[in-house]
């Protein structure tokens, strides 16, 4: 299974681009990881400094021996990462996690991204282009300045509908509003903040549209061993959740690890409340 071929690789920072206040785009030469990266996979970065655990970041683009990261300055680790000079060597572990799957039978699919939830979709869009399957993309954010990566995705020749809560870019409203206003999609992919994903899952589940979402939690190990990143999923679902299971007698779910059993889950399998 290709998702399980991982490398610990010393990558070189080859480019560093400020794309909007607080948002950065880094290029890293990392042949082993770039060559195997799939949509929704991520790398765990050992940020130089006083950090004892790696930082998980989604793989944005991957081309030849280079991959790129698109991230926001959230806190201490991402701030540090944003300030490293080109030429720095960074230890990466990856590609980690499972991938979005592209059903060979698909007639077309809709991507729904919220803010930086756009990250897994450059690689997915490339896959769809290769497979010649139609794709529509909806990207939303609170306001225009939080809509990043859209231009890069458009460069692939993809039509993208945008929306913002405040109407500063595209339609005013959220991605679910946009989705509702359209014909029912055959297949949905989603990534974004928890509230958006939850609404997206309700939408898809109510209409019985197959839907894959890529989830996020705070990670410890990024490797599946610390059990720091769990999400309750329906028992007996697709995900090979491994142990430990929820107590069989009381709850009809397993706790899956986002880092290794995901980050991709079927909307129908995710249980949003415990």
């Amino acid at each position: 299974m290709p998702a399980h071929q991982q490398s610990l690789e010393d990558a070189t920072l080859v480019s560093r681009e400020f794309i909007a206040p607080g948002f950065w785009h880094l290029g890293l030469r990392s042949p082993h990881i770039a060559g195997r990266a799939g949509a929704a996979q991520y790398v765990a970065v050992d940020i130089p400094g006083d950090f004892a655990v790696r930082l998980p970041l989604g793989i944005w683009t991957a081309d030849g021996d280079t991959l790129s990261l698109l991230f926001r300055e959230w806190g201490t680790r991402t701030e540090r990462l944003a300030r490293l000079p080109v030429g720095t060597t960074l230890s990466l572990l990856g590609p980690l996690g499972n991938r979005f799957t592209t059903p060979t039978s698909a007639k077309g699919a809709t991507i729904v991204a919220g803010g930086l939830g756009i990250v897994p979709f450059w690689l997915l869009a490339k896959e769809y282009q290769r497979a010649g399957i139609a794709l529509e993309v909806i990207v939303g954010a609170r306001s225009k300045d939080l809509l990043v990566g859209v231009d890069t995705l458009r460069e692939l020749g993809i039509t993208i509908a945008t929306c913002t809560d405040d109407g500063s870019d595209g339609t005013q409203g959220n991605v679910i509003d946009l989705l509702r206003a359209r014909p029912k999609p055959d297949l949905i992919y989603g990534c974004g903040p928890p509230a958006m994903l939850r609404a997206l899952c309700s939408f898809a589940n109510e209409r019985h549209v197959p839907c894959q979402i890529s989830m996020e939690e705070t990670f410890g190990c990024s490797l599946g061993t610390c059990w720091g990143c769990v999400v309750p999923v329906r028992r007996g679902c697709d995900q090979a959740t491994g142990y430990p299971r929820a107590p069989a007698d009381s709850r009809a779910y397993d706790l899956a690890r986002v880092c290794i059993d995901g980050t991709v889950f079927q909307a129908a399998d995710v249980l949003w409340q415990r």
Partner: protein
Amino acid sequence: MATLNGSAQPRIDTRVRIGSARLKNPLVAASGCYNRGAEFARVVDPAAYGAIVLKSITAQPRLGNAMPRVAPTPAGMLNAIGLQGPGIEYFLTHEAPALASAPTAIIASVAGFSVAEFAAVAARMDGLPNVVAIELDVSCPNVDREGECFAADPDSTAAVVAAVKERVSLPVIAKLTPNVADIKPIALAAQSAGADAVSLINAVRGMAVDVTAARPVLANVSGGLSGPAIRPIAVNAVWEAAKVLRIPIIGMGGIETGRDALEFLMAGATAVAIGTANFRDPLVPLRVLRDIEKEAERRKLSTVAALTGLAHPSFATKTGTR
């Protein structure tokens, strides 16, 4: 599979003894940080470890705490997993059989909320394939004694150890908490109750606040601090315990390099455990073992065991057992 350049054939004897258990080397993967090693096997051979301590198992299945359960901190991390686990029944049926093909020796870990629970779960671990010792995570709240942590009190610690010793034949290791004013009476109580070794230290109590959201980062509010940040606290605990104990000590807390591991060995530990550092660098056991061997060689010692207590005045007068 990664190997380290320049790691030549071991020229010195790396074996150590923990009670009647023999480990091929003094490096142990810490409980809760390594599963059975399978997830790491893609990047490093888990057999690099002399033993792997399993995640602590409880009597009943437990879902653990709500999310978030982990948080990065300066030179460390906080965790509040809350002893998530399938419980002993599920463990015995579905997981224990796979231990037959474990990459290295296994130390089972037991957690419980009453003396009886510890004894019952530990008894069922005795004799599982490849399991060479049983570690007792006595850092959980004691429901028999109004929720106070077992290892905060010498008597509770002794009660657990004694009850388990009556039921198992494998060596028993008491894993103690650093959240006490003085570790010595607790360590001595464990020894008197029959513990074959102590593990020092479990994570240190701490917490972080998310100042953007104005709430604790962890859903559980507080958690256990691990990683390099706590190393001086851990080395001190080992040093203090080594003043009074006869039984071996497994030292842990923030080990990332051979130099770090040597601090523990020289302070009086017979073996060392590595937890959080695996997350940052899965190759850590290879590096640490190579550097410990180098140091033993530099000192013209023929065994790694001879490094134990080198910095500790108490060891000048002690003999053999470690």
